[in-house]
């Protein structure tokens, strides 16, 4: 009995060790390149090849200053912040208005229009950037902030409408009726009841669209040629093309692009997991 018990305990421990070795190995593979990037960003061009310690002896923050000023990253960073804020705000307002109408209001052609948005989500459009570029040229929106913002709002619109509509469908009718009796207008109901009610869904929409805009590259490449208008991802590629061998400064730039998004993810990961799994499993 005792031997059997010991064997059981031993097998359980062996399995747990094996599982943790596997999980930890993958976790290190995930983190190490990012750690190595930050490490390089904190070294100078001279020490980066000489200092072989895991943590460099001498930390140098000069690369961040150089990237910020000489590399034009101050402008890129600010642009990314502006684009992300504008696009996300636009998507939340426009998609919640539409989703509210699809869920609660009536007008002819409602279902047709709604299924149009659903269909748009189902049909992948690779290479739609070609006609989009043609259109933007015609509208004189190339090299304008407005053009890029409008394009990116469109990218996130369909999915956001769908998520919010399913959420508004769950909103109790009694609440709405009570508000209507109190003389609340439709727009008032949207603002005072629907939006606060949908807060969890809006959080999901905000985070996914923010990730998407912050990380977007193709449209930023096609639409923005002027380096004063470029967001970070575009700026990084331009910088790499011009100073490809100055790795410490490049890594400082990459760190500046990566850290904010990792921070946002760490603070909002509850909503990311909820959004991802809700979409597929729930």
């Amino acid at each position, binding site marked *: 009995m005792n031997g059997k018990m010991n064997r059981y305990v031993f097998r359980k421990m062996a399995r747990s060790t094996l599982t943790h070795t*596997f*999980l930890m190995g*993958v*976790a290190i*593979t*995930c*983190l190490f*390149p*990012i750690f*190595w*990037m930050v490490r*390089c960003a904190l070294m100078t061009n001279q020490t980066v*090849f000489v200092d072989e310690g895991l943590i460099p002896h001498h930390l140098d923050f000069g690369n961040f200053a150089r990237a910020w000023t000489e590399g034009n990253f101050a402008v890129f960073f600010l642009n990314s912040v502006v684009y992300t804020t504008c696009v996300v705000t636009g998507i939340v307002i*426009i*998609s919640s*208005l539409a989703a509210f*109408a699809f869920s609660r*209001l*009536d*007008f*002819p052609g409602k279902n047709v229009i709604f299924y149009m948005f659903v269909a*748009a989500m189902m*049909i992948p*459009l*690779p*290479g*739609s*950037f*070609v*006609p*989009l*570029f*043609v*259109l933007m040229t015609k509208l004189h929106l190339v090299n304008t902030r407005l053009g890029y913002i*409008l394009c990116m*709002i*469109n990218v996130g*619109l369909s999915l956001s409408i769908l998520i919010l509509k399913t959420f508004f469908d769950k909103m109790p009718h009694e609440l709405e009726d009570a508000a209507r009796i109190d003389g609340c207008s*439709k727009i008032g109901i949207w603002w005072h009841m629907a939006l606060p009610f949908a807060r969890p869904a809006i959080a999901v929409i905000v985070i996914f669209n923010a*990730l998407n805009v912050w*990380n977007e*590259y*193709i449209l930023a490449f096609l639409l923005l040629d002027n380096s004063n208008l470029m967001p970070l*991802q575009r700026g*990084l*590629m331009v910088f*790499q093309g011009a100073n490809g061998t100055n*790795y410490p400064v490049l*890594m400082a730039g*990459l760190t500046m*692009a990566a850290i904010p*998004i*990792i921070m946002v*993810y*760490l603070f909002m990961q509850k909503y990311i*997991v909820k959004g*991802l*799994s809700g979409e*597929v*499993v729930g």
Partner: protein
Amino acid sequence: MSPKSRGASVLKNNLQNFSFVLPAVVIFCIFYIYPFYKMINLSFYQWRGIGPMHFIGLENYKELMTDHLWWNSIAHAGYITLIALTFQNALAFALALACDREIRLKRFYRVVFFIPPVLSEVVVGLIWNWILNPEMQNGHYIGLLNNFLYTSGFPQLVHDWLADPKTALTTIAIVNSWKGFGWGFIIMLAGLQTIDKQLYEAARIDGAGAWKTFTHVTVPMMLPVLLVVVILTILGCMQVFVLILAMVNEGLVNYTDVPVTRIFSAMQNTNQFGYACAEAVIFGMILVCVSFILKKLSDKAKQA
């Protein structure tokens, strides 16, 4: 209320309601419907982006059928997708299974595995481009990987991973999997957690071992979720582009170009807008067909 004024108030009400969806509809029509139409329309023309447009019917499509570079690029994307479907998804499933129980550090793992997916393709591509760098400076390899191979006694393995046609595409596919497995992991873990624990209990009482439980309970219950992951993997990986651009630029044409690269370079480098649109239409149709077939399969799996 008279019928007339009632009609007017219905109309007013409808207009008022419609105004809620108006901004969305306007943006959608301008930035989705019109480009959609324009893409199909332009594919029948020869056009350099400016100047006159020549209607040439199906010529672009005919040329496309015999364009080896184009079909090769689809094969390259297919290869990247295949690696993601097998290696990446198997890894994601194994990790999800390992985390679907009370283990220490579970939250830590869950957070860490999703960090690569939140990084942009540009950031991931440039980091790996640097890690894989084959050049030497001051007696050290610049790239972490080659330096590691060199200093740990395998100098014969030092390699220009991204410039050698034999290794370039596989290297890209592996980096793509590094960036992507976290998605599958999170979705599969959520799927595993919805499986009723009583099913496992029942299987155990029936005397089923770990492997039997896995094949008879876990896999059948997970089939719909796994199919969704497969569809998302295929659609995502077939359209991979920015990652490749960041890793090799347009360096190794014929070896690392994927459909979106071809569309991009037809438009950007050779100004063949019509041809680029024809490529986009064909590629879009391929993707729609694949996802439609898989959707049908997944509906069947859900019924069973």
